[in-house]
């Protein structure tokens, strides 16, 4: 029931741990599988959770990256993510949190507007990736990106820290977000 804190434990040798949070179990499973298939020099640990906070009676390694997956076709997923965000320490938002909006290609089925999720990501100062996990190509590319980000967050890439990932927020396409 405790708040999730970054760097609260010593890191495992050559291991990077990611926590995927979403109500979409099947999609998460597929994403985790594709991430594990990625070619990565370090050892990957993938934790899946439907919502936060995590139960405190289980020992788990240091979590380097938290990925909130929002299904744009499901309003409940957004609400669940919003509730879970309360149980994350503020220091996590220094580049160790990423939002993933899936189902972005089928805009006619979207029940959540793009702007709402953009505002959410902007409010929490975290990068947002639009994708569609149902298509395989998207899934691989997203898995690749997440693995790279995880390596950066776990400190496996020398000279680059998780704070550098905040540059992902700078997009030239939507300059009006700052005004929002």
């Amino acid at each position: 029931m405790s708040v999730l804190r970054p760097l609260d434990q010593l890191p495992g040798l050559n291991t990077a741990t990611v926590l995927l949070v979403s109500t979409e179990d099947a999609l998460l499973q597929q994403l985790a599988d594709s991430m594990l298939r990625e070619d990565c020099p370090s050892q990957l640990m993938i934790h899946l959770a439907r919502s936060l906070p995590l139960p405190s009676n289980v020992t788990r390694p240091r979590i380097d990256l938290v990925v909130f997956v929002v299904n744009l076709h499901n309003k409940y997923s957004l609400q669940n993510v919003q509730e879970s965000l309360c149980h994350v320490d503020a220091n996590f938002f220094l580049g160790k949190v990423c939002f993933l909006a899936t189902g972005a290609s089928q805009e006619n089925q979207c029940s959540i507007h793009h702007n709402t999720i953009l505002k959410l990501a902007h409010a929490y100062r975290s990068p947002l990736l639009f994708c569609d996990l149902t298509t395989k190509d998207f899934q691989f590319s997203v898995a690749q990106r997440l693995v790279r980000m995880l390596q950066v967050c776990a400190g496996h890439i020398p000279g680059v820290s998780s704070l550098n990932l905040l540059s992902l927020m700078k997009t030239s396409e939507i300059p009006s977000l700052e005004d929002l």
Partner: protein
Amino acid sequence: MEKPPEEEAASTREDIGGEGGQLQAAGAAEASEEDHTTLLLRLREQTKQQLLEYKSMVDANEEETPEEILQEEQIEAKIEGLENEIQDAKTAFEVKTLMLHRLKLSALLENNLENIDTKMSLFIDNMKHILKLNKSITASQQESWDLEEKLLAVRKKRLQLKQASASKLLEMQTERNKQKNILESMENSGMLKDVRQSLQKEIQITTVVQHVFQHTIPRAAWRLLLFCIFIHILTSFWGVKSTGQRFLP
């Protein structure tokens, strides 16, 4: 309700992660010794990076950013302001309670005064008596003042009389002195000397006449002559005296 299955899911994925790690570990084991050295170097770099991250984290936690300091100052100022407000409220409350007590007491006093009329009459009688006494005191004081004024007037009169008597006495003394002076001047004047000289002459004349007659006239006739002379002397004396009286003022 949802958490236990989630934890299960997490554990299964941990297994998956473990499998993936094992797979990659196997891949690493197949590599040659050079790969081992590169792996070690990479791990060194990793640990360095992680150490750097932890250091920066520790520094960030240790150093208080100016914003936090400002916030703390603001909080302290706010706390002071709130304490002052609490004190003000306390004092205001005390003052108000005191005012209420006063009001209650005044109301009670009014009620008591209205209820106890008999005692009030006693009080009024006492007050009236005191007023009467005061009036009599003032009247007697006025009387005493009047008497004192009279006394003063009498003393004044006495003083004036004294002064008058003194002046009269002075006049009398001057008069006496004048009379004395006149008498002295009278004694010193030549009239008395003349009278005495004439008397001496008369005495001598008589003695001479006596001697003459003693030798010439007998005894019987002597006596008669003596008698005549005596009468003559007497008459002359009387004449002198009457002239003296004439000169007296």
